[in-house]
């Protein structure tokens, strides 16, 4: 009898173990049920997609190489575009084996470890602040001006970044140091959306009027919708109801009418914009096939009444109005509720925006939320021509914030003022009300380095010795 009882215990244990194993197997494959495997909180950058483990860990789990490939699948293009100062090839070169031993920068996770919230610094860096010193400890030998500088100050004082130094390199500082006069009539570059649409042959239709709407029966639009739509660029460009609301199901099926078209419909004509949206914090959940981002899921302070809004193209652009001015300010402020956002309407930037919207300021002189966070950038067409379009990845120029200098600040401000303002965290929170209290010394140092170089040239008699 006793012997039989012992068997029962083992059988129970086996059954319980099998059930547990089955549950783990189900949970690990089911997005939204994977929290039990979470080894620690993820960073601000990735918390939205943390419940889809395979996004970063590969499918099935592929180890370090899979993780590196996952990083690059989202970040390779921006690293290339920023002219990465520390490309992987620098660390795979055998002559730099010593450097590699100090910092294995072949893997993103060496510096950007996930699930380690307690040691995560801005921009997702999980190394101590003195990481530059590992390889650049002797910098004062080459650059005596750097003697005595704090070993944590390289990347925290507005002088250097590990990856992106496009607005910080010495000759850039020198050039701006010479001609650093304030730009009194600064404007941002003009958007070339229409030009791009013409170029892509998207604007080949005749204008359509309310009488010619082709979805009245199927969609039953309200009078307000009709009125809004007929004043849009869409109506003027011949984009009828069916262009957005009739979707082809594929496999030769009949097109079906859709009440609420998603971002993929917009992407048919606005692909660069949708790609940007999907790459940033607003659309990254959609990119991974998850439910849309909602302000209630965000880590930044958001307005409580916006908590359950779902982010899509139309949540900012408004279906049937497509008002880009609303999308540039009011849409942002309908959700964002942090200090920087709350201070915006009292800022000099908003005053300029208000003047432009009222028709009193020159075109491009106003500074909206989008002016800085969704800047107008050069976009390469499929034929490698450049057009000016809006970058819809709000994260593209955000961190480190010096990335904003070239695409935005220099349109109106001097480099010195821009560096100083962006290095003053309190001023950023006040939305740039007041003057910077921080001073970045890099331009002065670069100009001095230039003078020393000129003196050396003069001494050796080679200056201007060109053909």
């Amino acid at each position, binding site marked *: 009898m006793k012997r039989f009882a012992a068997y029962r215990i083992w059988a129970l244990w086996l059954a319980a173990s099998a059930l547990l194993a089955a549950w783990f197997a189900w949970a690990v494959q089911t997005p939204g049920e994977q929290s039990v495997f979470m080894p620690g909180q993820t960073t601000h950058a990735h918390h939205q997609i943390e419940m889809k483990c395979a996004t970063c860990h590969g499918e099935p789990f592929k180890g370090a190489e899979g993780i590196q490939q996952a990083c690059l699948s989202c970040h390779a293009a921006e690293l290339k575009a920023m002219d990465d100062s520390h490309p992987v090839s620098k660390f795979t070169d055998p002559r730099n084996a*010593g450097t590699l031993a100090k910092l294995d920068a072949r893997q993103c996770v060496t510096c950007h470890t996930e699930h380690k919230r307690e040691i995560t610094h801005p921009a997702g860096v999980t190394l101590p602040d003195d990481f530059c010193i590992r390889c650049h400890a002797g910098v004062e030998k080459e650059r005596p001006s750097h003697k005595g500088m704090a070993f944590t100050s390289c990347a925290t004082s507005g002088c250097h970044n590990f990856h992106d130094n496009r607005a910080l390199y010495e000759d*850039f500082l020198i050039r701006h140091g010479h001609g650093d006069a304030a730009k009194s009539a600064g404007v941002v570059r003009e958007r070339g959306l229409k030009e791009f649409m013409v170029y892509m042959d998207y604007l080949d239709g005749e204008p359509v009027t309310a009488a010619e709407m082709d979805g009245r029966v199927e969609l039953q639009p309200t009078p307000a919708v009709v009125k809004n739509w007929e004043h849009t660029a869409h109506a003027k460009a011949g984009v009828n109801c069916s262009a957005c609301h009739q979707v082809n199901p594929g496999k030769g099926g009949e097109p079906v009418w859709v009440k609420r078209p998603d971002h993929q419909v917009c992407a048919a004509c606005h692909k660069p914009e949708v790609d940007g949206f999907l790459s940033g914090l607003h659309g990254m959940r959609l990119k991974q096939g998850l439910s849309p981002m909602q302000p209630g899921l965000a880590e930044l302070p958001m307005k409580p009444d916006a908590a359950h809004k779902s982010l899509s193209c139309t949540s900012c652009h408004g279906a049937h109005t497509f008002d880009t001015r609303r999308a540039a300010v009011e849409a942002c402020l309908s959700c964002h509720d942090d200090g920087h956002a709350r201070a915006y309407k009292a800022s000099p930037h908003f005053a300029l925006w208000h003047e432009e919207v009222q028709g009193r300021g020159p075109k491009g002189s106003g500074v909206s939320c989008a002016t800085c966070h969704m800047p107008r950038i050069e976009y390469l067409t499929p034929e490698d021509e450049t057009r000016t379009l809006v970058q819809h990845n709000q994260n593209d120029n955000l961190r480190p914030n010096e990335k904003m200098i070239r695409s935005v600040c220099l349109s109106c401000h001097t480099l010195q003022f821009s560096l100083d303002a962006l290095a003053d965290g309190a001023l950023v929170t006040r939305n740039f009300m007041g003057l910077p209290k921080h001073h970045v010394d890099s331009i002065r140092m670069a100009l001095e380095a230039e003078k020393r170089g000129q003196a050396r040239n003069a001494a050796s008699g080679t200056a201007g*010795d060109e053909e």
Partner: protein
Amino acid sequence: MRKLIPLAALGCVLGQPALAAEWTHKEIADALHSIMEADRTVYTKLIVNRLQNQEKVIKASEHWKDDKALVLPAQMFRYGSEAVAEKGAKFSYSLLSLWPVNKQNNAKTPVEKEGLEAVLKGDPYYKTETLGGKKYFTAIYPDKAVAKACITCHNDHKDSPRKDFKMGDVMGGVVVRLPIQ
């Protein structure tokens, strides 16, 4: 007769030209360098020196993107080397000098230091070295000033440690590294 068959077979093998697999490290390095040197010379002479120094159509600049200018020959060489590394090639190469404008291109390993001194005489230098626990066959080839553009740029650059280069001078060396299995 039976003894003659294997001998005949051996004769056939020996009589054939060497297969690529039989190339020595030195021969492979020399072959790679001959392509590098040819391309580098063509870019320097036909693109940079012609358009910048002779026809004065466009400048070459270190900040070619901002300045809308030609890529410098040294950058052209480095970008190629980086692209090769990104493709996962087993060999690597770089352009180094005892007087580099970019300090990262200074001699770093003992073999590089010895080799860059040696190639000043004009001949290549070959040696094996161990880096990061791996053994490499390292070949260093003299890199000479082939056009006026080379010497004016280096002699005038504010960060150049040497300012008296003349045409034909060995300004540095191309380092080619092959792993030894």
